[in-house]
């Protein structure tokens, strides 16, 4: 695929008084990808994205969005970007359709508003006031407002925080949908799971610096960590046979749980174990794989868990 950078950030630094929010961050976002910035609260993600949106002035460093400087040329950049902000809301008594209509008026062009409402599933709520919407509905409206002027880049800051699992899944589908229409998505999240599921590229951020930057798949496999196949066995297991498999590096038994470890991403391990099991005559249940995740990458890079 032709590389076409739409956001370039070099040696970005943002200091508030004596607090260093962004220490030294550099990255490039290519057109049409979902680029994620993930890390714990206070890592400098929001400061970075707000500098790129032209809402904050950086202390030093260079930012280019679609070739423009978002701080000096913010009004040239704004029509081409859509934003969903972490800490913002709308007027309580503003109706859903009025919000779309109002925001559409701020831009030189806009998409079909009824189709957009349909797409985010708010057609039935078009006359509802903002204050009466649920958390998920508000976020869907914010997505609609970020898309109403057909921008090239969409910034989403903590889109799914505070939403229930089902609403999160709906959001993830919407984000993939935005990419499917050729737009670039810059996603900020503190959820490693979300980053892993959605992003083409992930920057893991901690204390204002990027500690790792690659595709989620590469980041996880670069750990070189074991994948595991786990199941529960009834009766006496034939561990010898499993141990003899080429992909298996170690077999452990913890009461009735069998944990089989192997190198790599686990696909080869899983298929060889599943092939061997019926031959061994073992009766098993609850078979599943456990793979390393971005959480493990974060743990390795920073020496602590994200939740700390």
């Amino acid at each position, binding site marked *: 695929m032709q590389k076409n950078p739409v956001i370039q950030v070099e040696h970005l630094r943002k200091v508030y008084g004596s607090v260093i929010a962004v220490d030294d961050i550099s990255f490039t976002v290519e057109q049409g990808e979902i680029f994620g910035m993930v890390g714990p609260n206070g890592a400098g993600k929001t400061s970075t994205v707000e500098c790129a*949106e032209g*809402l904050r002035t950086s202390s030093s460093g260079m930012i280019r969005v679609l070739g423009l400087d978002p701080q000096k040329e913010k*009004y040239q950049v*704004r*029509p081409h970007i859509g*934003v969903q*902000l972490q*800490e*913002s*809301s*709308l*007027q309580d*008594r*503003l109706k859903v359709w*009025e919000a779309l*209509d*109002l*925001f559409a*008026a*701020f*831009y030189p062009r806009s998409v079909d508003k009824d189709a957009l409402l349909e797409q985010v599933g708010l057609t039935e709520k078009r006359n509802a006031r903002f204050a009466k919407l649920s958390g998920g509905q508000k976020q869907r409206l914010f997505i609609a407002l970020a898309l109403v002027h057909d921008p090239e880049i969409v910034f989403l800051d903590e889109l799914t925080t505070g939403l229930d699992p089902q609403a999160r899944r709906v959001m993830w589908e919407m984000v993939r949908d935005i990419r499917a229409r050729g737009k670039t998505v810059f996603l900020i999240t503190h959820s490693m799971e979300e980053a892993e599921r959605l992003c083409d590229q992930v920057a893991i951020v901690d204390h204002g610096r990027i500690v790792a930057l690659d595709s989620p798949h590469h980041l996880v496999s670069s750990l070189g960590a074991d994948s595991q196949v786990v199941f529960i066995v009834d009766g006496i297991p034939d561990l010898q046979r499993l141990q003899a498999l080429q992909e298996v590096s170690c077999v452990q038994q913890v009461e009735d749980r069998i944990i089989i470890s192997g190198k790599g991403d686990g696909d080869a391990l899983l298929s060889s174990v599943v092939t061997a099991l019926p031959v061994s005559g073992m009766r098993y249940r609850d078979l599943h794989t456990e793979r390393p995740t971005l959480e493990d990458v974060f743990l390795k890079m920073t020496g602590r868990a994200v939740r700390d």
Partner: protein
Amino acid sequence: MHSWLKLTWVETKLFLREPGAYFALAFPIVLLVIFGAIYGNTPNAFLGGHGSLDFYVPAYIAILMIIIGFYSLPIAIINYRERGVLFRLQATPLRPLAILSAQIGANFVMTTAGAIILVIAGRLFYNLHVIGSMPSVLLAYLLGVLSIFALGFLVASVVPNVRVASVVGTLLFFPMLYLSGATVPLKIYPQTVQQIAQFLPLTHVVTLMQNMWFGGSWLDNWGNVFALLGILVVCLLVSVRLFRWR
């Protein structure tokens, strides 16, 4: 311009969805009805031979300015700041001046609507007269609204939250309601109080409005004009330095 008009229009609609809006618009009309019932509009020697309502309608318009300028305007802006509405609007191509002037525009529309209702009610029920020229009255009105709104905007710039804003609004509102000549004639107060009244912005609004209403000359009112222009300029300059978007 299109986006500014749209935002002003939407904010005007939202103003009317606030239950408090009807209080703001009704208060001067209630004053008109109560004092109209008591004194009518017959010429009164104590008021310089003017009819009571001819004398007080311009003052009630000034009261409308401080209800909206000291409560509605700053509370709307501070509420939008606290809740991140201003920040969201900032992330669009709208200029900062457009965002804030749309708030002022919506409150101006409401104040003017209230003033028009007051004048129509006065004419219908109490045979209200305007003796001065219409352009002079309108200019006095405009200067009054802008300087009162500038003071309200200064409150929005320095006050941290809505709770404090309503306290500050009240601290500004009541002294001006009673000590500016808007409800109680200044003549009945002791000399010292009358001198203090000269430091209240509303005193200059009420005096200028009444003088223009009765056909006074701008040359005789330069003191009021300069006081109001001074308030306008100082409040705007301080606001520009202190205003926070979030």
